[in-house]
């Protein structure tokens, strides 16, 4: 049957094919023994065929043992586990793992209305290393990192499959393990880790597997709080900037697939240690980040290891996030701090004023807008414009100070013209400007009417 291969090579590129053949890179296909045909679904569910070396008391080579890896056997096959135990006193960056117990009840704010209250919290941290991107059926989690607290330890349990046929045994193991936890904590797990893992349950025929934990995806609060303060909300960046964690000789996660494929090809285990270690630190950082948000929700901002944010935007966004999580009483002091901040930005003033307007706190909203409008110099931008408009609306409709309103509206018009100079006026911009022009006209008419 080498005809097809030759033809394929010829079609792809005859030149490369020839070179390869000359270099002896393309070996002659071996004649495979004919095997009994099994329908696919049966075969996939039947698990990997037992390779001759996989006797029940299979021992691992020293290479693996040096990494702290042991073998797990089940009726469905074998896979590897690397377990690392940390005492709860272990410090990872600025946080200590003992703090996890302190903040656990605060994390209950993450519970959605549709989640039943489990009555207790048993947190599972999860992070996958996969063979590709996306959540398609061909993206395989070759390493599943789990972490949880047990007795006086924090246990990081990392599973590894030595080849794709071991996956079924690993998924079987997970199907028993996962339901004992009430909470799942991930970083971007809602759109990636969990859907990818869930696919595997379906692919391996665990159709009845059911586990509906309270899912805490820490990427979401991280984005809410650090969106503009940090250059990136990647876990490795957040941990370095906010959790005091520095990694040494870290193998970046993006290299993990290539390392694994190399292992599949040559069977050399040593390079996988870097992937294990990277994943292990991810697990610890995940715990540290959960501690951080737990502290925030527990009212510990500015106390103990959690410093008060330096930048006004982080301060404000932390407040807005706490409010969204139902902790308005914790948010209020932060808002007050923003309003009193010696170096506020117009953007933050406007954001907070917008929030105040929505919940009826007109008094502070007006003060904030006025602050934003002050010293409107030549560098006036979007937020300055916004503050002008908001104030003009307030004076026109709430306090009926029409002349004040007109001055602000006219200033807003000037700002807009300066900002939009040289830009094409289309769609939204045009409509906005048109609306402003109408406002000015209306105010002028009203003023004339009232003065006469």
């Amino acid at each position, binding site marked *: *049957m*080498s*005809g*097809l*291969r030759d*033809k*394929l*090579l*010829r*079609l*792809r*590129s*005859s*030149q490369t094919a020839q070179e390869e053949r000359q270099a002896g890179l*393309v*070996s002659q*296909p*071996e004649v*495979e023994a004919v*095997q*009994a*045909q*099994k*329908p*696919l*679904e049966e*075969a*996939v569910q039947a698990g*990997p*065929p037992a*390779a001759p070396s996989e006797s029940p008391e299979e021992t691992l080579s020293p290479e693996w043992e040096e990494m702290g890896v042991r073998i797990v056997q089940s009726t469905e096959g074998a896979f590897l586990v690397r377990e690392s135990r940390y005492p709860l006193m272990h410090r990872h960056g600025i946080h200590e793992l003992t703090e996890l117990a302190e903040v656990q009840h605060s994390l209950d704010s993450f519970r959605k209305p549709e989640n039943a209250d489990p009555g207790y919290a048993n947190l599972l941290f999860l992070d996958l290393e996969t*063979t*590709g*991107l*996306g*959540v*398609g*059926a*061909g993206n*395989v989690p070759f390493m599943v990192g789990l972490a949880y607290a047990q007795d006086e330890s924090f246990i990081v349990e990392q599973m590894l499959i030595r*080849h*794709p*046929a071991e996956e079924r045994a690993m998924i079987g193991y997970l199907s028993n393990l996962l339901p004992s936890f009430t909470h799942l904590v991930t970083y971007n797990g809602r759109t990636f880790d969990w859907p990818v893992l*869930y*696919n595997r349950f*379906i*692919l391996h025929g665990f*159709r009845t597997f059911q586990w509906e934990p309270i899912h805490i995806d820490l990427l979401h609060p991280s984005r809410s709080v650090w969106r503009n303060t940090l250059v990136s909300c990647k876990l490795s960046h957040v941990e370095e900037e906010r959790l005091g964690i520095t990694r040494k000789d870290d193998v970046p996660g993006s290299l993990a*697939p*290539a390392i694994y*494929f190399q292992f*599949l*090809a040559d069977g050399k285990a040593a390079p996988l240690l870097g992937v294990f270690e990277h994943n292990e630190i991810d697990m610890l950082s995940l715990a540290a980040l959960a501690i951080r948000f737990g502290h925030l929700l527990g009212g510990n901002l500015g106390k103990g290891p959690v410093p008060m944010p330096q930048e006004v935007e982080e301060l404000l966004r932390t407040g807005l996030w706490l409010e969204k999580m139902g902790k308005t009483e914790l948010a209020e002091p932060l808002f007050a701090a923003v309003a009193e901040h010696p170096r506020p930005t117009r953007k933050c003033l406007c954001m907070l004023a917008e929030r105040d307007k929505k919940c009826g706190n007109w008094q502070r909203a007006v003060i904030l807008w006025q602050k934003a409008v002050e010293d409107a110099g030549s560098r006036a931008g979007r937020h300055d414009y916004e503050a002008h408009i908001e104030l003009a609306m307030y004076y026109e409709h709430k306090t009926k100070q029409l002349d004040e309103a007109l001055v602000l509206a006219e200033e807003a018009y000037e700002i807009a013209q300066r900002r939009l100079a040289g830009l094409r006026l289309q769609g939204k911009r045009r409509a906005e400007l048109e609306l402003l022009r109408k406002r000015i006209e209306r105010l002028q008419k009203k003023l004339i009417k009232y003065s006469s």
Partner: protein
Amino acid sequence: MFRKKSLAEVINDLRSNENIVHWHEIEPQEARYAPIPESVDTRIKAALAKRGIEQLYSHQYSAYQAVAKGENIVAVTPTASGKTMCYNLPVLQAIAADDTSRALYLFPTKALSQDQKSELNEIIDEMGIDIKSFTYDGDTAPTIRQIVRKAGHIVITNPDMLHSGILPHHTKWVSLFENLKYIVIDELHTYRGVFGSHVANVLRRLKRICKFYGSNPTFICTSATIANPKELAEHLTGKPMRLIDDNGAPRGRKHFVFYNPPIVNKALNIRKSASVEVNHLATDFLKNKIQTIVFARSRVRVEIILSHLQELVKNQLGSKSIRGYRGGYLPNQRREIEKGLRAGEILGVVSTNALELGVDIGQLQVCVMTGYPGSVASTWQQAGRAGRRHGEALIVMVASSTPIDQYIVNNPDYFFDRNPESARINPENLIILVDHLRCAAYELPFKETEEFGTLDITDIMEYMVEERILHKNGDTFYWANQSFPANTISLRSASQENVVIVDQSNVANVKIIGEMDRFSAMTLLHDEAIYLHEGVQFQVEKLDWEHKKAYVREVDVEYYTDANLAVQLKVLEIDKTNARKKTALNYGDVTINAIPTIFKKIKLTTGENIGYGPINLPEEELHTSAAWVELREVDSDIGIKTLEQLLLGIANVLRHIVPVMVMCDRSDIHVVSQIKAAHTGHPTVFLYDHYPGGIGLAEDVYKRFDEIKEAAKNLIGKCLCEDGCPACIGTEIIGINGKRRSMRLLEQF
């Protein structure tokens, strides 16, 4: 005072028109009915009764009964014969009987999916059963995608979305794949050539996933009239099919006439423009308030004819009563036009072949085609737009000056007596097959013993293991690569690496206007080439070969460019040979090495050469299948120089005639003549598939060579020119009695 003529009068007037070269009448047919089967749910019966449907047409009945027996079917029906009932009835019945049943509908385009959804939902509403049907394509909002996946009874999509959006994510579609009862493939005839070969492989993947989830769906296909619907359906789906072709829909009398515009330049055999003639004819119909559809071959042509017609009749009719219809119009706009046509508010429509597909616009009275649509099947589909169930209809095909058009109007028997073309696919094309094996392995691991099509694929799988795309463990091949294979594989483009054409006429709005395969790009998109796109001239400013981009700018020049391509053809393997008296016909694998040399600038009006330039591009190599005829003995009275010219002329004729005979685009099959073929030294004419690995066109040429030969002789013989024109053997061989000698030479082929 203008008195409106009736259609009958208009037809009568036309009979004396001297430009009509052929008049063909199609007899009317009475409706044939069958009762709605007992087994149909009463709610469905009631919904049908509300629409005035108390019985079924015979073909709808046969379709229902065959599907009920579990047979896969392909229903062949002309336009507007109620074909959607052939699949909607069994599908709705299955869901009415068992709420967990699921069906997947495939349409070649998104627009057709939308139409189908509205039609389906109307019936469902009247049935009063909670059946959810959704379209699922690139336009589906992310918020409702999950609902479609979990709860959609009928999911309406297209092959592209199935390929890259559904199959690779099959784990999210468990409820669909576990319960899939029917797969509906509408417009089956559009799945041919490269596209069809891809789709056949997508269906193999679909069946594989169904098997994994334990379902075994029945296929229900519908097709316009082609020569081999059953064969195509079986080839595409890999399932035995029952052909349903007992069309029971009624139809009135049809007049099908060929109109050949008068000659304006005798020497060059140039005729009056088809568009101008179409304008006159259509104006006459429209002024008499006869509902008319005009087909044109390009979008630009549609717009030109449209503006002419609107201008010509603006005093009699409002401009809103004549509309254009083509791809690029917004969906809402198209819906409005379709509705206007059905209601009779719109009197005339000018369309590209976009209206050839099953969009419901009701039935019009007259159809005018600007030029031959390119295939017999396509012509019948366009013609089907005219013809009500009762009363007469008129179809006028106005020929252009091109050889194919002239051949058709001068050989009406060719058109009316012959079956429409066969649609061919080659799912075993190695390039295509390997692409889909990658996708399939991504979706589910492969067992060594597993089948995928007709070839033994073990060898290919082993190859992919070596390439580190797959990993083999025990008897199973697993996907082991970082990529998402479906994203890099397009079902519609001819070869993997196309050259993208970037229009930078407007610096602020640079846009991509098209793409072209690498091989053609060498001669059509080289630096300084004049590239015609929808009738607009562009000049190529830079061909970035490395990044496969051609940057063009709109120009208005008096010339076109013609590149010389030095082609070397090597025969790798001869699969079949048919020796004749003086010649031999062969089929096999060839390698083509092509390198462009220079290009000429040729003046549009006179055809004179006004300049040239070099082309600097690397050599390209293509492996494909070819059919070739070699002359083992040549009459001694033909000199070598003359023979070379005659072969060139014959190649020119074949270039015109073969795409018509084997139903493909002109660029899909190439013709090359050689006075001394490398492998034999004999004078030879090669015809090869212009796609790596071939898609079965050359094989068809081999099988039907005698028919093609006759058609070529016929074209030369009936051409009105004196001794060669661009419409037949070309203009470069005047003075050697080329036409007669070419025909004699062809005789020996």
